[in-house]
């Protein structure tokens, strides 16, 4: 064994080198995440889908369809607003993921990614920086909608632990969805293509339990919603709000998020390799 080991000084040097690289890449992810957040707040067309649209939709739905809670089969909730909070957060985080993809595609179109690719850092740190920014926007969205819920009288059944769990799930899901947006941006390099996915986001949401209980849907939407991974995530976020933390719902949400993470990061890594090869 000893014959194969590195000289101590070289081994220490390599370990220090690796530690430095990890530290540098962590700083790059933080810096790019911060840039991504600033970019979103400075560009109204990126911010509007994340906060303004879901807030307006939440107001319209709770104002116009608040009586739905009286329907037979509607799950027991304190109010329609309480029920809708998870859906609004989901809409916001999915549009944050889409906006992150658009912003990355704009970076590619204007050549800004070349500046990043020409730096001596891990090229995956560039994608992770974008996802960190999207996760932060997910965190912001969950806090925003919790604030709205509390101001307008919604109760958080799971208390502070439940709220923290919901916030964590929303934050991580935002990054996971952002991974899919980043993959499409890296593959196509076109902001208009990523922007074109906007309606698809709404279709996926309406075919989940985000805005209406699965129990009250009709076929084939009901079956689609039952198997839609976003329904599992919605329920994982909703349960701590409407009735308290439920281990099964949480586990199912985590599994669904993990699936999206694997798909998003896998596709992103592949698209990144393709882009670097093709130039």
């Amino acid at each position, binding site marked *: 064994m000893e014959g194969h080991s590195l000289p101590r000084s070289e081994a220490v040097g390599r370990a220090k080198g690796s530690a*430095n690289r990890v530290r*540098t890449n962590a*700083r*790059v992810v933080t*810096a*790019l995440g911060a*840039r991504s957040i*600033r*970019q979103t707040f*400075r*560009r109204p067309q990126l911010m509007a889908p994340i906060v303004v649209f879901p807030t307006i939709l939440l107001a319209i739905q709770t104002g116009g369809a608040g009586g739905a809670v009286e329907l037979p089969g509607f799950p027991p909730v304190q109010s329609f607003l309480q029920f809708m909070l998870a859906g609004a957060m989901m809409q916001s985080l999915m549009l944050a993921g889409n906006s992150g993809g658009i912003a990355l595609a704009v*970076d590619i179109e*204007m*050549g*800004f990614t*070349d*500046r*990043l*690719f*020409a*730096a*001596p*850092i891990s090229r995956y740190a560039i994608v992770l920086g974008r996802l960190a920014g999207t996760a932060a926007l997910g965190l912001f969205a969950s806090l925003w909608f919790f604030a709205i819920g509390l101001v307008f009288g919604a109760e958080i059944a799971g208390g502070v632990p439940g709220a923290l769990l919901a916030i964590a799930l929303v934050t991580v899901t935002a990054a996971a969805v952002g991974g899919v947006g980043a993959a499409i941006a890296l593959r196509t390099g076109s902001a208009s293509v990523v922007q074109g996915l906007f309606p698809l986001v709404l279709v996926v949401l309406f075919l989940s339990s985000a805005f209406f209980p699965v129990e009250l849907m009709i076929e084939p939407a009901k079956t689609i919603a039952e198997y839609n991974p976003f329904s599992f995530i919605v329920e994982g976020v909703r349960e701590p709000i409407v009735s308290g933390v439920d281990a099964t719902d949480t586990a199912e949400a985590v599994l669904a998020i993990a699936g999206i993470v694997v798909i998003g990061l896998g596709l992103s890594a592949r698209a990144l390799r393709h882009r*670097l*090869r093709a*130039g």
Partner: protein
Amino acid sequence: MAAAAAISVRGLERAFDDVLAVRGVDIEVGEGEIYGFLGPNGAGKTTTVRMLTTLLLPTGGRATVAGHDVVAEARQVRASIGVALQEAALDPLMTGRELIRLQATLQGLPGAEGRRRADELLERVDLADAADRRVGAYSGGMQRRLDLAAALVHEPRVLFLDEPTTGLDPVSRKTIWEEVRALNDGGTTVFLTTQYLEEADQLADNVGIIDSGTIVAEGTPAALKAEIGAPHVRLQLEDGSIAEAEEICRGIGALLPPVDGKTVLVEVEHGAADIPRVVRALDEAGIEVGSLELVHPSLDDVFVAKTGHHLEKQKVPPASSAPANA
């Protein structure tokens, strides 16, 4: 060449599907040199630069930059180079200061050092007052200067500037030239691609001319110009004595093809030193000269001689003295 090579390129190739955009390029750039890489749009300049800066994988050949292989040691190459690519790739929503600080982070500079370098560079490129304004509000010249400052944040050994002055007004162009000269005086090797012949002539120690993916000429600007011929005197005659003037000038140097019925072009081997001889000979023959001008071959003449067309891609009639792609 005595100095070590900062950039060494051997048989570099890049194909896009069936199209060979760069065809076996060889380049040698010494440490501390300014190398001007000239060529029209689509000649392969940017593709070559993208390979040398590790943004694009070559499909053939080999290249080292700052002693590191661009494929096998791409990270070391990226740590040694500064890059300001064509059409300054700047985020219009960031401020100048934010951009330089981000670049410092990308290059691994610690926070305090990055902030210090950002302030120093913004001052150096005369953007300190505009540092906290968004880049989208900068003029073209300001954006180029900011891009240049970002490329310098880690004091690179080799600086790649891809058409740094394209689209700039003469004053902004001059500012960039001065900065490039100052950097080079400090020991930085500069690889400069340009469409402007004057830019290469003013700045470059050596020039490479690329056309259709192939290097067609390489050398110092002076040597390249000397290669295609001596300077010539352009005589504008006041009267109709052109035949007589040509006869006299033929005894001084070779005549160049006439451009109109009032102008004589005669090569003068010793340049300005031959002018008195020309004037004396014409004066003795009683020929009245309206104007006289000593014309040196330009890099555009070199370009035309080597490629058969002007740098701006305007086709000209085949040069009588040199075949295309000679």
